[in-house]
């Protein structure tokens, strides 16, 4: 019997467990998933929860129900990985040895890493994050009674998971406040360490003009040094100041603490991997999937899905002693909510930035790339169903793992 251990039973861990059981005979392979709890959270729903669109229970399912029966689930906190010993240390459980290890413990917001941010006098009172269920729920309650002032939407440092989520939050806040007749009493500022609204030129321009249309001020190149809890001000490394009454921040995102010192990780506890195969750069029998890896792609459910597909096919070759022939291209496919029942869609990879055009079929769509449409908004809402029923269960979705240029309008720069 060979043993595969998957750390993390979130989006990536669940998908890869479901895919692996299809390819590997159960009399030769034992698959174990370890997660700290049994609640699987649909994270994309955290964006809409603060605006009263979902209730917490709409976003929670039991992890166990999404894993195949023959897969063992250990509910325990991972304390350490010892790659030289092929073993992981768990809390309240004996150590587990593996032949192959898949790290899928994701990334999480760390407000404690920015001085002043989680100061008890302001945290969850005038400073909120929406990347956790507690944070999104507290923010919902605050927004319900907020009477206006300076709203600042802030990104601490890249990379963050779902890099479009804070922009979407700003768009949705604008629409929400307008609906409540409060928009005149509110100024909205979007503060980012990036040079513009988003990372790549074409999307940055489009999303930047959407900020302008909504009278949302942009404060780019802002690398935060600290939050001053007394004056409620963000202070940058080059001493710029942005005052707020209500701060919605995406704190520094970091990989799991147990990776620190494992010899597998970078400065933010992401596992260093080959960006085509997701294989650790230091240990051949260790892989990282989803947000936990350092691949230069968006940290998104779609990326986890596409890369898990490539990984599984490669893995079947690898265990037969063959080389891994397929290389992941960084394909990401993300809906962007823009408020008032509309949305955008972006589809891109390591080499190709998000472009305009039609998706998935050239000329037909039905979805439009980098353009606000009602169809894209409906796509985003449908994504919740697709997530629980197709993505997690490793069933096929009608989008290929590798990106296609079909339907995209190339830029004319060379």
């Amino acid at each position, binding site marked *: 019997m060979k043993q595969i251990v998957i750390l993390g039973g979130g989006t990536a861990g669940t998908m890869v467990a479901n895919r692996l059981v299809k390819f590997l005979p159960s009399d030769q392979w034992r698959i174990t998933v370890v997660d700290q709890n049994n609640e699987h959270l649909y994270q994309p729903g955290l964006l809409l929860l603060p605006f009263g669109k979902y209730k917490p229970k709409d976003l929670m399912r039991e992890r166990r129900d999404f894993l195949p029966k023959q897969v063992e689930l250990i509910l325990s906190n991972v304390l350490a990985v010892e790659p030289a010993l092929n073993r992981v240390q768990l809390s309240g459980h004996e150590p587990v040895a593996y032949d192959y290890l898949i790290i899928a413990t994701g990334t999480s917001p760390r407000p404690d890493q920015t001085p002043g941010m989680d100061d008890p006098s302001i945290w969850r009172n005038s400073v909120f994050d929406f990347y956790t269920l507690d944070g999104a729920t507290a923010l919902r309650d605050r927004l319900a009674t907020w009477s206006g002032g300076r709203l600042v939407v802030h990104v601490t440092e890249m990379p963050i998971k779902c890099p479009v989520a804070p922009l979407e939050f700003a768009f949705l806040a604008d629409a929400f406040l307008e609906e409540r007749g409060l928009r005149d009493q509110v100024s909205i500022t979007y503060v980012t360490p990036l*040079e513009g609204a988003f990372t790549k030129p074409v999307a940055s321009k489009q999303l930047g003009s959407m900020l302008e249309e909504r009278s949302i001020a942009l404060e780019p190149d802002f*690398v935060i040094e600290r939050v001053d809890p007394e004056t409620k001000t963000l202070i940058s490394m080059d001493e710029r100041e942005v005052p707020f009454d209500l701060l919605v921040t995406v704190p520094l995102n970091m990989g799991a603490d147990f990776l620190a010192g494992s010899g597998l990780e970078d400065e933010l506890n992401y596992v260093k991997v080959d960006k085509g195969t997701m294989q650790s750069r230091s240990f051949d029998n260790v892989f990282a999937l989803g947000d936990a890896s350092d691949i*230069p792609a968006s940290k998104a459910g779609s990326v986890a899905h596409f890369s898990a597909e490539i990984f599984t096919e490669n893995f079947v070759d690898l265990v037969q002693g063959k080389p891994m022939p397929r290389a992941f291209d960084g394909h990401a496919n993300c809906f962007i909510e823009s408020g008032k029942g509309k949305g955008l869609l972006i589809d891109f990879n390591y080499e190709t930035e998000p472009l305009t055009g039609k998706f998935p079929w050239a000329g037909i769509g039905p979805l439009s790339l980098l353009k606000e449409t009602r169809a894209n908004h409906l796509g985003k809402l449908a994504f919740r169903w697709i997530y629980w029923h197709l993505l997690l269960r490793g069933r096929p979705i009608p989008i290929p793992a590798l990106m296609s240029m079909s339907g995209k309008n190339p830029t004319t720069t060379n």
Partner: protein
Amino acid sequence: MPVIEIAGKQVHVNEEGFLTEYDEWSEDIAKVLAQQIDVDLTDEHWKVINFLRDDYKTEGESATTRRVQTVGGIPVKQQFVLFPKKPAKKMAYIAGLPKPKGCV
């Protein structure tokens, strides 16, 4: 990729003027690139640039400001003093390396 002449040498650059070939860089080229973006190179600047060059050789990618702080030992705050406003981009530019990732 365009080829341009810097400090009497032909070098390959991308649309934004970043050198694309690691080995085409030299200290003389760095001085010209620094001048172009109004940076006066001091010993402290060279410490950062040399760290970036060495780190790229082993890592295959440009160090982020965080990495220059934790591995290179130069605080982010100081990087902002040395390379005002856009340290990550300016350091990589002068060191003849690609723009650092993290921007996806």
